[in-house]
């Protein structure tokens, strides 16, 4: 099993939807996964761009 995760006795059943947290539909969840993935690429690109820009600044 993955370190840092727990099972008590037998494998844990999938977490029941919590009463308090907003319940997300599967479609919503996968939209969020896609969004965080896109954002990751954008941020990566931005960092790279800043790095390259830095190379152009004369010192």
């Amino acid at each position, binding site marked *: 099993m993955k370190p840092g*995760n727990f099972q008590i*006795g037998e494998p844990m059943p999938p977490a029941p939807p919590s009463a308090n947290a907003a319940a997300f539909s599967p479609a919503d969840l996968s939209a*969020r*996964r896609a969004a965080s993935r896109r954002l990751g690429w954008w941020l990566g690109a931005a960092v790279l761009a800043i790095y390259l820009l830095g190379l152009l600044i004369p010192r």
Partner: protein
Amino acid sequence: MNTATTTQPTPHDAGHYPGGLMRWLTTTNHKDIGTMYLTFSLIMFFVGGLMILAVRAELFQPGLQLMQPEFFNQLIGVHALVMIFAALMPAATGFANWMLPLMIGAPDMALPRLNNWGFWLLPPAAILLTLPFTLALFGIGDGAIATGWTFYAPLSVQGGMGVDFAILAVHILGISSIMGSINIIVTIFNMRAPGMTMMKLPLFAWGWLITAFLLIATLPVLAGAVTMLLTDRHFGTHFFDAAGGGDPILFQHLFWFFGHPEVYILLLPVWGLMPHVLATFSRKPTYGYKAQVYSFIAIGLLSVVVWAHHFFTAGLPVPALFYFMFSTMAISLPLAVLFFCWIATMWKGAMSFETPMLFAVVFIVLFGIAGLTGLILADVAADAQYHHSYFVVAHFHYALFAGGIMGVMTGVYYWLPKWTGHMYSEKLGKLHFWLTVISFNLTFMPQFFLGLAGMPRRIPDYALQFAEFNAMSTVGAFILGLSQLIFAWNIWCCVRGGPKVDGRVWEGAEGLEWELSSPPPHHSWETQPVIK
């Protein structure tokens, strides 16, 4: 499903526990003690905050407005000591007390009476620290310690009785932290649920384990240093006096041998907490568990060998400057690993942004600024310019407020429903978050520019060219201070009532602590769970 495990009646639950005040004075229960630590921490957070608001008011405009320089110096020193030793450290210990037994499947902390003593040492120490202010009102002594939190000799050797009070307060706080650390180490080593190997330990426990080792390694050295200070002051020794063959720089070495690891002591518990929060709200397992564990260990080891970067300008030999510069910069490598793991945990996750998650995400950004400016300060040549300027003040507030205090807020929002069984108000939480983040940056971002422009720290008056940035900073500080009332109110309401939550609280939450009801029973994990 979450409540079934732990509610077997126990012989102890027969009800002969004292109630009222006696409950809190005598308790040996980790949850009660955790609650006391956290409450104390919140109170002292406001005490230290009020002190520094007076300071910011003084700095609103150039010239001496409200107070004498001596009093100003007392305020900044006691502010820092209160915030570090009485607000941030007790908050982390409170988390450990509440959560470690729940997270590792233990019935309680390993040494419960010692645990109680560890807490009850704090109020006397806080009184010792702040008493000299009151005494001065009655004409006894000349007020609190006026050396800043660093106690540098020879100023501290010459200072008044506030220094003695602070020295003894630090001794008592030190004993408290040592007792807490021993307890945490023993709990983690000896109380884990069967099957929970060290590499299945929750990262929060790992962070605290390294913290506890650092405390054990460095706090006694601080105790030794302030003891030498005490004998220099009253018993005629010459540790820090060149006329007797001593050296004031010796004090700086001893102090920072403790002082640098201390900043990691303040942050490692938060670094341990972050992956839990990020994983929960990204609905995805923590990325790089092992990498984070090894980074904690590497940071712990490195942090005790870099101390002299705090006094590059004191006149160290050049080889020493080089060594301390490079070793300091080396710390950013394991730190960068942590940043990578935090971000990678979120990547491709189904993220949602409840208050704890908002704090966690912003923590990464603001704490990143702390780390990057730290790298600038670690450069010996650059530090000659920045040392003892407001740049340093800004740097460590990004580390300690955004990294430390906002990390604690993350934990409070994340675990408050677990502790109370009620949901806090998400609306107020978000309001608190946005006000805090904006006003925090309004307060401290200008201080970078002030420092770059040459404004020294620890000074009640300044040249006219610094006026605008200082005014901005003061406005920010007051908004920041007032916003914390929302935080306190939100906590208060959540303790008193609110929508009930179930054991898991957050739908993405994983770990033993979420298998218990919210709030957990008085004795949790009387029968230890078995981890496979």
